[in-house]
């Protein structure tokens, strides 16, 4: 299947297209320029909310301690999808195992941060902002990234959050409003009468308030919503996909992201969430259901990106706010823990295991010790993939993890 951009260029060459008023066509032209300068890479972040149990995702099946700590929840050695002689995927992660086989999946092990916080909200805020509570937390790491990317080259829609939950703090930016899009077909204004639409746009754009005030925030957010929804409605009509996505929440979100990547608004950052990983009780059924949803949706996404020729310019990263306690609790679940793996997916990621599995013999208060700071992974993504200054985004230097395969 041809990408929209290529189709456009062919049509344009044939004289079949006139440049539209909505700024869509120039985006295609700019995309060509971006491709030449290497500023065309896209980052997709998948947030696994609630605290994913890393030990039952990437299973250390050669460790007796794992089976001792989890008499009810451990996954049998014979069931895992083997990665190497010591580690294997949860059996429902067939999609991840296939991606690993194809060289499209990296597993960064033992990721966390010093003095881990076991509150969902506090830990999530730390991952989103890279700051502790005592520091300024009005913007997120991706918001700061957007500011930097926009400064280099302005895009119409620099980032998109796909979902109907609140905008993740990671995407908060001082200077840009990142739209949240629940679904493509709902993302438009219903009022149709031309006169009222124009009047509304005029009225909504009037703000006499100072920048950053509450009214100013509402005004710029409203104008962004009007602009972005109009652009998306006009371009998305022509997007269809040959790939069957699973009919799950994450499947639908990744399908929307693939459509938006193909439509090419110059968007560099996408964000989607899958919730429910807080498995304090009866973990087995819930956790396998979530991992299956994750694996199947990501597989379909990669298949789609391959078909549209975008796989090499899209990197997806999966994270959770913390892992879970090594020992299971009495409710056949696990409590909040610390270090856990992150996943990288794409045509150019460093495939395979990155770093070693945290030791099950050397625990801290019953939790795994991290050896890789999540900000080192961010630094790798920022420098090697988005070509950003990671110190500016993260506030200090972190030795980047090699997340992208060297050319």
């Amino acid at each position: 299947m041809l990408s929209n951009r290529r189709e456009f260029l062919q049509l344009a060459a044939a004289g079949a297209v006139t440049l539209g008023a909505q700024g869509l066509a120039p985006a295609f032209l700019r995309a060509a320029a971006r491709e030449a300068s290497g500023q065309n890479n896209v980052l997709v972040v998948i947030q696994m909310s609630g605290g994913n149990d890393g030990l039952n995702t990437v299973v250390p099946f050669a460790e007796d301690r794992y089976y001792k700590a989890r008499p009810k929840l451990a996954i049998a050695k014979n069931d895992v999808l083997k990665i190497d002689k010591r580690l294997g995927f949860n059996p429902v992660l067939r999609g991840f195992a296939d991606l690993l086989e194809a060289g499209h999946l990296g597993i960064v092990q033992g990721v966390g941060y010093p003095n881990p916080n076991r509150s969902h909200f506090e830990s999530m805020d730390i991952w989103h902002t890279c700051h502790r509570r005592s520091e300024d937390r009005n913007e997120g790491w991706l918001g700061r990234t957007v500011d930097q990317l926009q400064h280099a080259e302005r895009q119409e829609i620099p980032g998109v959050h796909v979902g109907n939950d609140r905008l993740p703090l990671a995407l908060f930016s001082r200077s840009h409003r990142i739209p949240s899009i629940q679904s493509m077909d709902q993302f438009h204004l219903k009022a149709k009468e031309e006169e009222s639409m124009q009047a509304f746009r005029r009225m909504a754009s009037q703000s006499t308030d100072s920048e950053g005030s509450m009214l100013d925030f509402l005004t710029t957010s409203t104008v962004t919503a009007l602009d972005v929804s109009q652009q998306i409605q006009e371009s998305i009509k022509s997007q269809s996909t040959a790939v069957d996505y699973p009919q799950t929440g994450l499947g639908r979100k990744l399908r929307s992201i693939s459509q938006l990547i193909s439509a090419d608004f110059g968007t560099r950052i996408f964000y989607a969430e899958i919730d429910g990983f807080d498995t304090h009780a009866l973990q087995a059924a819930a956790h396998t259901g979530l991992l299956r949803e994750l694996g199947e949706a990501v597989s379909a996404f990669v298949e789609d990106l391959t078909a549209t020729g975008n796989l090499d310019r899209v990197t997806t990263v999966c994270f959770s706010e913390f892992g879970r306690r090594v020992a299971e609790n009495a409710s056949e679940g696990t409590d909040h823990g610390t270090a856990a793996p992150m996943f990288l997916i794409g045509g150019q990621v460093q495939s395979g295991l990155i770093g070693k599995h945290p030791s099950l013999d050397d625990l801290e208060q019953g939790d795994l010790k991290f050896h890789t700071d999540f900000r080192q992974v961010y630094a790798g993504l920022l420098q090697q993939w988005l070509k950003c200054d990671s110190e500016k985004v993260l506030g200090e230097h972190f030795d980047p993890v090699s997340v992208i395969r060297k050319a």
Partner: protein
Amino acid sequence: MNPASNSIDPEWAWAPYEPTGAEDWSLAHVAHFHRRAGFGANWQTLQESLPLSPVTLATQAVSQVESAEVESSSQALVTSILAAGGLNQLPAWWIHRLLQGSATLREKMTIFWHGHFATSGAKVRDPQLLLRQNRLLREHALGDFAAMVHEVSKDPAMLMYLDSDSNRKVHPNENFARELMELFTLGEGRYSEQDIRELARCFTGWEVRRNEYRFNPYQHDDGTKRLFDQRGQFGGEQGVDIVLDREDCPRFIAGKLVRYFVADEGLSGEELIEPLAVEFRESGLQIAPLVQRILSSNLFYSEHARARKFRSPIEFAVGFLRTLDGSTNLIGFSNSLKDLGQLLFFPPNVKGWNGGREWINSSTLLARANMMHDLLARSETRFGGGDLQEYCDSQGWADPEEVVDRLSTLLLALPLNSEASTELTQLLESGSGDPEKRLRRALALFVSLPVYQLA
């Protein structure tokens, strides 16, 4: 009279507001009170409130009791909803109370506690248990905080939501102990991981069986616990008491209530909250006097408070109908709140709704505009039982200019800017379509404007 915004004098802030002239006590002040203490008020209520003092208004509000009529129609609705399975009609049941009820501050506080002790029907799928918790929260909404926490700790819906309906001696489940301190009483970081583990031990043996709380002595760890600076063979109740006794508890609750009623932004510093926290503690954690104090204070009526709240979806939608004596299809109205980001009985997670800027993003803003578009396009949506045009006539609003002016007074926390005012007047005077449709369309645009999203 207002000090500079970065240095609010706590003593001034919480002293009763005493207006000295008509400028200090206008329709705008009264409308502000009703937007915050309730869901807005119609023209008549504003006129009735104007002769009352700020303290009288607040005192009346904390002692409201719902009318027998609304209680009985609410009960009838419960019966019919439960007969039909009910989980997904729970939001409509509550919206009915919000639209019809007269004890609006109690409902507003019940929503506050629903967000505070968040429990979702997405996980606890039993409507009876959710309604039972809702009754508990409403009963204590302006009562005794300690009693409420004790009851919530044994509430089946809460324990099921936090996976704590089967807490065993070996490997105690930490979830409830953690959320009790982090979200319900003290605030994040006001305890150690050690305290969580010890408090979790206090709760061992707490179970839910056949939808009722039960203590199972065989599963209780009766060893000595070390919780904060105390040691003893504490059970769950004692654990709760020790936590409630911490000075951080009244601070945390008072601070959260100030943010709920006064301002989303611009208020900071523990010193500002401290006098309220001290009073709250000395009153034995009585909620009504605290709320009364906040709602009649200098700060509440100051520039630090005016238009400093983002309307929640409930305030946005319910406030609109209540202010204009509106009525509509209850189920459709209630369900559309999901896209706006606040479906009652279905909070997003145990932290409830964070509110503030988090209510606002491009999807929720479009959803707000689309909800009003649909609401006003529906013929079932009536105002004072009739057409919108008839309603405006009955209020004596003579021409488009006056309509826009009165709507601004009723609905907006800030004056409408003159450009928008002119646009709206023109839409009413010369737009296409019949006058009723024109009026409704203009009103839908009016409440989609950025300025209406502030309260």
